[in-house]
């Protein structure tokens, strides 16, 4: 059996959780087995995990799972995995998943691979692929243990949504004493978080100063995109640090990444080069970023960006 731990928030399964379920279901099909999804804490319609591929849902609704704690959560995941003889445990390579994956692997005496980018090859043993060297290469790893723990990279798989709600087994498991005490959550309101964003508009030093960011925000708003920036921009406090994408910031893989006034240093590319489509706007035709781009515009960003925003508005108006 493949056990998927799917993350939820605000009573719903998160996108990263949906991806993990679809990944788990496809893995289960390959391995000739079924996919059970585990949900922790309050959630509105747990059976909806079936929409993304789950065959069965195990739900531990206890209030003690409202706030995250890697110790109690990994214990709960392992308890369910062991009781139901899971051969694979699948998690998301998200902030929570990163705190859980190693713990779960140790508890289950399992080999683990985190940040998996495609379905494993099961033709001889279990061969799993992940990005290494900050996106500059991929590694295939063999897992030698009976139980295998995998965490799935964000956007590595599109969640399928053609299933139907499935039965839910509710278990009355108490989490026990948490190792950390929750104080508060601060979220940037109104935008999709960068690691989950499908479209990202990012700008660099070519912007000349923080006062010029209006054109970036206008373009992002028109595209329904999240804004990001390069490291020098964050280091100069032109933009908040949580917008910094790159090797030492956040690594992202949206469907569309528009880089504006960013030269494309190797460290920046390492964080964004797994984006599906990259558009580069830069006045310097020699900017290294053009080598990594799908589409390029050589021109003054202060003219090109408003023109692009207008062109998107025109497209929408034309239907």
């Amino acid at each position, binding site marked *: 059996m493949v056990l998927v731990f799917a993350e939820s928030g605000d009573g719903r399964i998160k996108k990263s959780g949906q991806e993990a379920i679809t990944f788990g279901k496809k893995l289960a099909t390959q391995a000739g087995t079924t996919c059970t999804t585990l949900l922790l804490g309050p959630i509105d319609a747990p059976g909806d995990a079936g929409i993304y591929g789950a065959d069965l849902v195990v739900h531990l609704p206890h209030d003690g799972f409202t706030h995250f704690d*890697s110790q109690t959560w990994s214990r709960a995941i392992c308890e369910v995995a062991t009781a139901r003889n899971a051969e694979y445990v699948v998690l998301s390579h998200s902030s929570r998943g990163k705190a859980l994956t190693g713990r779960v692997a140790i508890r289950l005496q399992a080999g683990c691979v985190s940040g998996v980018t495609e379905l494993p090859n099961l033709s001889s043993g279990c061969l799993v692929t992940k990005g290494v060297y900050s996106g500059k290469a991929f590694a295939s790893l063999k897992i030698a243990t009976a139980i295998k723990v995998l965490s799935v990279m964000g956007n590595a798989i599109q969640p399928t949504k053609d299933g139907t709600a499935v039965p839910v087994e509710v278990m009355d498991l108490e989490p026990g004493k948490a190792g950390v*005490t929750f104080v508060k959550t*601060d979220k940037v309101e109104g935008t999709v978080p960068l690691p989950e964003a499908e479209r990202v508009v990012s700008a660099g030093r070519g912007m000349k100063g923080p006062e010029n960011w209006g054109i970036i925000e206008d373009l992002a708003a028109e595209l329904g995109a999240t804004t990001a920036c390069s490291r020098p921009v964050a280091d100069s406090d032109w933009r908040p640090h949580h917008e910094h994408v790159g090797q030492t910031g956040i690594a992202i893989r949206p469907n569309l990444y528009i880089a504006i006034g960013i030269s494309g240093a190797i460290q920046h590319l390492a964080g964004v080069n797994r984006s599906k489509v990259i558009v580069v706007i830069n006045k310097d035709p020699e900017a290294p970023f053009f080598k990594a781009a799908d*589409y390029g515009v050589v021109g003054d960003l202060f003219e*090109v960006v408003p023109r692009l925003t207008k062109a*998107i508005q025109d497209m929408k108006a034309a239907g």
Partner: protein
Amino acid sequence: MNVLVCVTKTPDTTAKIGFVEQNTRFDISGVQFIMNPYDEWYALVRALELKEAQGGKVTLISVGGADCDQVIRKGLAIGADEAVRIDVQPVDAYQVATEIATYVKANTFDIVFTGKESIESNGSEVGAMIAEILDWPFLSYASKMDMEGPTATVDLEIEGGEDTVQADVPFVISAAKGLAEQRIPNMRGIMMAKSKPLQVVPGSGVAPRTAISSYTMPKEKSAVHLVDPENMSELVRLLKEEAKVI
């Protein structure tokens, strides 16, 4: 506070990545190795700040061969008091975490710091594994940390924001950007580092659970499609009809 900082060596951030022996081994020729940036810039410096504020000792630990000594010495030059190298060439995170946890059990530490991930294997596994082996709380991706007595109040990076949580020592914490400001070793630090203790101890013999079977390079991008800067409706058309991303 008795603090242990886990450090590893990684290729320099600008290193050209290549592989040898039928793509089964990383090509080290011409590659400069550095201390993993998250270990050096944030984990180590925050550990040193804790010691400066309330006394104690900062110990570095690395699992690897003698080729790690250069980055360990750099950590001593930045200000760590002493260092331990577990003399094993690790194959996976499980081996690294087991060796470090074994050392922690045999000694006394209040806090174990790691970087949030290595820029080489991008796993974020070692910290969580150490925490589980020791059955300690784990504070993952910390971007701010305040200590008051035995209690840490810590901001943790989450998707689109941060969680603030509290935990009492002992715990494992993984360091992200913001936790501290990078320090450059000065000449006095470099000189002092030469006489600081670097203990080399044999490994426990624990076997890895995963192994790399081969590496591949990402597919080369085809040449960039340049669009006339005057004609942004053409770019919109391409994104909509050809790339199908809007």
